[in-house]
């Protein structure tokens, strides 16, 4: 089950890269996801909002293979059944995930972090004999620039600021050249300046990858969603969907989310 580099089998014929169909996840009775259905189109930047416990993270878990749906199906493209794949396979297939709390390899340099993430055969033997070629070095340099960490490459990741760690993590995702990027609260705990730069970064990425952003910060969402679709989750199901202004107008949303 070597994770393969060429995106074998990713078939986006119908322009849809991710299908969630009637996905239900329940932990001892509690339904974290309740018949959630969702489609992400190729190249789309989708924002997902929702109060705590709406099931955002669980949804991420289902997509990345950490949690198996109790019922329903999750497909990557037309053919890949995410419910049957292991985390590494899914990652290899082209789904990158950024966690809520930034997780990078704190004991490694920024450079090593990116190098580890680089898109290649990640089996044991290949890793043991791996050597960096110039193309890969260029790629790393490029990403460094993209996530605004040039000049930091030899620092230990553990020494980076919170925001920088977030970016580094995004950078690692980019090194994987994923088709689909899942970003869990990318600006949580960031200063306004950092938030702004992150927004820029996402806007640069728009179109190059399909991106799903889960976020609380409405301002940020408004900034990156632009005319794109915004989905509101509530109690594990889609409550509303549409352009930001539509969603914000929807009184059910106001009811549960903006809460008053």
């Amino acid at each position, binding site marked *: 089950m070597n994770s393969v580099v060429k995106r074998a089998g990713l078939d986006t014929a119908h322009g849809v890269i991710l299908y969630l169909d009637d996905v239900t996840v329940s932990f001892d009775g509690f339904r*974290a996801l309740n018949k959630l259905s969702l489609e992400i189109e190729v190249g789309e930047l989708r924002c997902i909002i929702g109060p705590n416990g709406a099931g955002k993270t669980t949804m991420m878990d289902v997509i990345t293979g950490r*949690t198996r749906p109790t019922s329903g199906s999750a497909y990557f493209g037309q053919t890949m059944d995410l419910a049957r794949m292991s985390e590494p396979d899914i990652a290899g297939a082209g789904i990158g995930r950024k966690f*809520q709390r930034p997780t990078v390899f704190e004991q490694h340099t920024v450079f090593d972090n990116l190098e580890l993430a680089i898109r290649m055969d990640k089996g044991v033997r290949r890793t043991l004999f791996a050597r960096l070629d110039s193309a890969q070095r260029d790629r790393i340099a490029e990403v460094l620039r993209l996530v605004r960490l040039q000049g930091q490459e030899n620092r230990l990741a553990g020494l980076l600021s919170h925001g920088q760690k977030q970016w580094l993590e995004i950078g690692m995702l980019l090194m994987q050249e994923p088709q689909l990027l899942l970003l869990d609260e990318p600006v949580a705990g960031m200063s306004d300046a950092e938030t702004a730069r992150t927004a820029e970064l996402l806007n640069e990425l728009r179109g190059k990858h399909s991106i799903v952003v889960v976020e609380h910060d409405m301002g940020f969402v408004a900034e990156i969603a632009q005319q794109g679709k915004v989905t509101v989750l509530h109690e594990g199901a889609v409550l509303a969907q549409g352009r930001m202004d539509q969603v914000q107008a929807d009184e059910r949303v106001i009811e549960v989310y903006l809460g008053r």
Partner: protein
Amino acid sequence: MKSWRYLLCGAALVLQGGAGPVAHAAIAPAALQALAGDDPDARMQAVSDIAAQADGDAARVLRALKNDTLYATPDGKVYIVDGPSILDAATGKPPVMPDAKPGATLAAASAVMPAGLDGIVVNNRLRGAVDAALSGLALLSPRRAERLAAARALQGSEPDAGQTILLRKAAGVETDAEIGALLRQLLAMADLRAPDAATRKQAVAALAGSVDPQARRMLQAMLARSAGSTPGHAPDGAAGAVDAAGGAHGEPDPGVRAAARAALDAINARAARTEWIGNLFYGVSLGSVLLLAALGLAITFGLMGIINMAHGELLMIGAYTTYGCQSLFRHYWPGALDWYLAAALPASFLVAATAGMALERTVIRWLYGRPLETLLATWGISLMLMQLVRTLFGAQNVEVANPAWMSGGVTVLGTLVLPYNRIAIIGFAFLVVGAVWLVLTHTRLGLFVRAVMQNRRMADCVGVPTGRIDMMTFGLGSGIAGLGGAALSQLGNVGPDLGQAYIIDSFMVVVLGGVGQLAGTVIAALGLGEANKLLEPLAGAVLAKIAILVFIIVFIQRRPQGLFALKGRSVE
């Protein structure tokens, strides 16, 4: 043993005179002299002869013999030297000596007596005879307990003629049902030898309810064939099998044989049942031991996540504290020695708890969040504690005696003996569990403990003194371990290595139960105990233990979080 006939007369006398000693008759010096001599058979004879007197003097001498308080001088004068008092065995009066006052101490006495006053050695054979004789006398004792004990003591061997007569007498006057039954069974054994089949048949029927191994042996003998047949192997005793080539049956009458077979089956069935129940009890008992050993760890390791390799040594500390208390009582308060545990339990808790808190403050607190480093540090601590005990108390084990009320056991179903100390420990184990549960769920400390364990930072913020809580939690765990040690001291060794014997099992129990799961620990302990004890008869002690370990390894594969795993949404 023809002596029983005298015994009978004596007994008769006793009966006439009602209970209690009759007209005083000194003991024949010849008998005493023989007793002091070293011709074994003569000594046996002497015991019989003395027993034959069946009076207070006889009983006194026999008891003295049994208790190693019978002394003799080279010229065959025999004295009962019991602590400070000296009595002339023959008369039961203080010895008439030129210059020794009555009640002089042994030292004083031996000073005035001919040199070489020396204890009369008893070996098992003699002791057996003495016991039998004493029981014989006790059969007619006014006290029920004594009679019961006597009747029990007489089991295990076939009564001889003289004994039988006495037994009939006793059975005749016996009012107590239980004792009566025992006596009748003893008599039934004698009746098996009776000439007429009817009596034998009755006897066999009576024995069906017996738990006496001797009865079983005799029944088997009846069914066995005389020629080349072994007791314990009973060929098919259907009527007509008599003339088969195998030689004659022990019991000629087929009817009686059938009855005997029925009786034997009844006995065996009961024995099997008893054995099964026994195994269950042993399992619970072993489980309770594991539980006591592991409970402290369930707190320090389970709740706090400290891999405390010195846990075993905390058990040891508890055990040694118990030893200390016992010694103190011995020394200052011998009268209350039986109750030293009452002091030992709190003491062992406090000492171990203090030691634990000291460890926590000095070493462990610096290692929170680095569980595998605590492993190394506590390993070092355990080495030091062991060596410390070696230097203080010596490398040898020390003696911790069961209090009188904890030694011996209660006999159930006739043969199964449930030792009091094990029963006590089972009870104690559950008491401790209950106490811990209460502390954790119904006290402020418990609340804090759970708070800190669930979310240290948050607890800190809401003003829980996490540092102190850590210390007290660890102290609690250590204290529990101390209690465990106190309990273990009642079962096995108290030595420097005591801890090492339990540390691994303790970890297995906690991990199997599920870290942080008190209930899990309890179930795991009992489960392992039972499993071990049910396997042992089949596989032997070693393989049983190996099987258990393999089971644990496999089980952890299935449920990496132990019995009581908490499922939930994955947290990054």
